[in-house]
């Protein structure tokens, strides 16, 4: 198999990797915020329900969660299982939403009470205080930990192969098995490095942009 043929086949797998990455990110960023509000709720049952859920998700391996989402409904309820890729996306979005929600929560809790009170005495509404004063400061604080999590997500996408979704590692694995060559396995390392390298540069830029002030 020529280098170009291998590259083409791997690129196919990489598209799936990118898809998992992109959809997880786009869905988890807002969903995470929703979970944060739940875990900071003033209504105890909601707060504890959400906190327990987050604890379970963060306390178990993502691989296990993928397996449960894919096989669980069939084994427990006798339902048809989701398409493989959909099951992966569901598991990833839930998992990453929970991680993001904890980062958001840390960010929100790190904003001094004085910022809220300054807004309050100036007659601002709760909504205005959150969106005009607190949110931006939270974003500035969470960009570094979010960056770490996003880089982790790049590599976590390879867990999708546990239910035979052909992402990058699985694509390489197939070539290795069929053609009895090992080098595609090393080659995909370059894909990951390139992608996470680009993301790192991007995240650093965002961080720098937000560094126009310090608190």
């Amino acid at each position, binding site marked *: 198999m020529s280098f170009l043929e291998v590259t083409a086949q791997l690129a196919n797998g990489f598209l799936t990797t990118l898809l998992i990455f992109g959809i997880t990110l786009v869905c988890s960023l807002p969903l995470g915020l929703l979970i944060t509000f739940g875990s900071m709720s003033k209504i105890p049952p909601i707060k504890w329900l959400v906190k327990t859920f987050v604890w379970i998700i963060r306390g178990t391996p993502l691989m296990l969660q993928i397996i449960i989402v894919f096989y669980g409904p069939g084994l427990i309820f006798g339902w048809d299982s989701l398409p493989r890729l959909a099951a992966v996306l569901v598991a990833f979005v839930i998992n990453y939403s929970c991680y993001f929600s904890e980062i958001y929560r840390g960010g929100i809790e790190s904003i*001094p009470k*004085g*910022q809220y*009170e*300054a*807004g*309050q*005495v*100036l*007659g*601002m*509404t*709760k909504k*205005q205080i959150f969106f*005009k*004063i607190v949110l*931006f*400061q939270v974003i*500035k604080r969470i960009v570094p930990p979010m960056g770490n999590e996003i880089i982790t997500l790049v590599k976590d996408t390879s867990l999708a192969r546990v239910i035979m979704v052909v992402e990058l590692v699985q694509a390489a694995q197939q070539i290795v098995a069929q053609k009895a060559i090992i080098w595609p396995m090393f080659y995909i390392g370059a894909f990951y490095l390139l992608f996470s390298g680009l993301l790192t540069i991007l995240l650093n830029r965002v961080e720098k942009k937000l560094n*126009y*002030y*310090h*608190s």
Partner: protein
Amino acid sequence: MAFLEVNGIQKSFGKNEVLKNVGFSMEKGEVLAIIGSSGSGKTTLLRCLNFLERADSGSFSVDGEELFNAEKTYTDKEKREKRLRFGLVFQQFNLFPQYTVLKNVSLARELLETDGKKLAKDEKRRIFKEIEDNSRQLLATVGLAEKAGDYPCNLSGGQQQRVAIARALALSPDILCFDEPTSALDPELTGEVLRVIRELKSTDRTMIVVTHEMNFARGVADKVIFMANGVIEEEGTPDEVFGNPKSPRTKAFLEKSLENI
């Protein structure tokens, strides 16, 4: 009826009764200084007036209008309207770090006058322009006109506190409260902040200043309240309270604070 009337304010945190039946009054254009040892309830009193704490009992009114009565409950909207009668300058400034000095001053009024309202574009622009002009003027009043475009993190503590004063003035409160406005500052920076407060007095601003600066209180206030353990132990003109204190507690406090200078 006095301009500000405060009656029977009582406030507890759990079992700790921090304010015990505090009442006083002041006239328009007066400066009231509140002094007292740490933990006597000065901050809590200001926070009650600014609706940051809810007094357990008591009431207060400004210009004959009852703003708060512990027997009644208020919606968030009512509270927001009422609290605009007061302004509060915090010990720790609490400026918004992500905004320029100018925006710190103008933001609240911009939100108040435009947020959630359907306004024509040029109407909105006109309002923003007017608020900006007003904010720049306020910055000039506190001597910071040329800092309008800077961020708070690049200002000294004294300058930050002056921005905070301009910010509080932007909403034209009837009564401006200061909670130890110079306590977080290096000694060489307190002068510039106290000077601003003196200038505000000369324009007949009604102000309540909680302070540990006895000379300032004596020189600027029309009226002084000495608080101890959640009660007003003594009140009167600066000459009465500082020159001839009646209560032994006041005497002891003043002697001690003179020692510290």
